[in-house]
């Protein structure tokens, strides 16, 4: 750090915001500006591993300030997007290990310490993902699709249906309750079997896979229910095969009321090495 930068830092106390790790050791400055849109993004290097960072004002990123800021959607939303944009920009210089939002350090020395500790596993991971991309697959199911699927195949439910037709008013109430319960369980079982089948198939076209929790309808904003949410690490050369295969699956399951959604390519968010 030159004396001018040091003087500036003393005037305005700042923190280092860490976006990710890369293999680039050449000093580079991304065209993207950092989180607060002022300071440049630059690499801090140790051997062949670099931390992609920018300086951010302590006044905005101190523990007390973040306590408030992280609850403020108007503050948070653009910065989450910015974080992702900067990682994408860094990807132009080679593979990147994305770091979780708001990872902050007080000094360069602390970041160099992280680099020293993780040097080997991080470099190994970066060369592993160099020729790979993360793709996200979500599957949605039309509202009545699950029930239709189950009713066709269940003798237990059919028997219950027959009893229900002949039941008295009092009895039919309890029978209906029971039918609801059995139906729900059977819908769940058939969805589980179906998605497991699809997951296995998609995994065979990828290097690594990860199933994530499905998101609430209020999150997705869709009428259909999400029944599958997963991420796949795919060889760049085999992305065509992956997408083609997914497309065939989507065509096969369309008649059963399933909709497939693909997103990517992403940096390997879902496949980052775990730090002990």
């Amino acid at each position, binding site marked *: 750090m030159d004396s001018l930068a040091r003087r500036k830092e003393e005037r305005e106390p700042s*923190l280092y915001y*860490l976006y990710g*790790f890369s293999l680039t050791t050449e000093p580079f400055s*991304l*065209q993207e500006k950092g989180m607060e849109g002022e300071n440049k993004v630059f690499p801090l290097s140790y051997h062949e591993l670099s931390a992609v960072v920018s300086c951010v004002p302590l006044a905005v*990123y*101190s*523990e007390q300030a*973040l306590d*408030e800021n*992280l*609850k*403020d*959607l*108007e503050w948070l*939303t653009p910065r*989450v*997007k910015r974080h*992702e*944009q900067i990682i*994408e*920009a860094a*990807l*132009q210089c080679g593979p990147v*290990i*994305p*770091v*979780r*939002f*708001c*990872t*902050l350090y*007080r000094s360069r020395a602390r970041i160099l310490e*992280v680099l020293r500790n*993780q040097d080997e596993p991080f470099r190994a991971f970066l060369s592993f993902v160099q020729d790979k991309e993360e793709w996200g697959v979500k599957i949605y199911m039309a509202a009545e699709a699950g029930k239709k699927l189950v009713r066709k195949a269940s003798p237990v439910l059919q028997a219950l249906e027959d009893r229900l037709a002949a039941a008295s008013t009092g009895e039919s109430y309890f029978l209906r309750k029971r039918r609801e319960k059995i139906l729900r369980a059977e819908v769940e079982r058939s969805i589980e079997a179906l998605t497991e089948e699809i997951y296995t198939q998609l995994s065979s076209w990828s290097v690594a896979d990860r199933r*994530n929790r499905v*998101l*609430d309808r209020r*999150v997705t*904003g869709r009428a259909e229910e999400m029944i599958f949410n997963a991420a796949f690490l795919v060889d760049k050369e085999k*992305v*065509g095969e992956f*997408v*083609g295969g*997914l*497309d065939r699956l*989507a*065509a096969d399951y*369309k008649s059963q009321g399933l909709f*497939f*959604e*693909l*997103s*990517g*390519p*992403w940096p390997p*968010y*879902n496949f*980052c090495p775990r*730090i002990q």
Partner: protein
Amino acid sequence: MSQPELYYAPIPRGSGEIVHATRGDTLSDVLERVLDKGVVIAGDIAIRLMDIELLTIHIRLLVASVEKAKEMGIDWWEHNSFLSPKARAREESRNLTEKEDEIKALKERVAQLESSCSLSPLTAERKTRKGRGKREPALPSRTPVSAE
């Protein structure tokens, strides 16, 4: 390195059965990854992130409302408590006033009922018991229990 957009291309095309969303398209995709995934390293600043699901719901509601409001020329979000602490304080004080009014109205109503009602607490209780007893025969399974 100059054009981040380059990374989007080329997007493999299928026969059109799948919906392909690029990363910028869906905020929930970005939130899911940036806030919940990626490598987790202890930094020097301790942070508390909101639950992603809850957060996305709030953002979705916000975005939907802002778009709708823009169409209608309304600027309600300036008063939305999720956006500004000032609005939150205003809402809290309004809620308090509303609650106070409600309590006042309820108190008046109770006083009114008390004065117009001639039942003493004792007769009121007896009446309730009688009412409960009347329902019991309708539920045969409960009869042995009440007999004990």
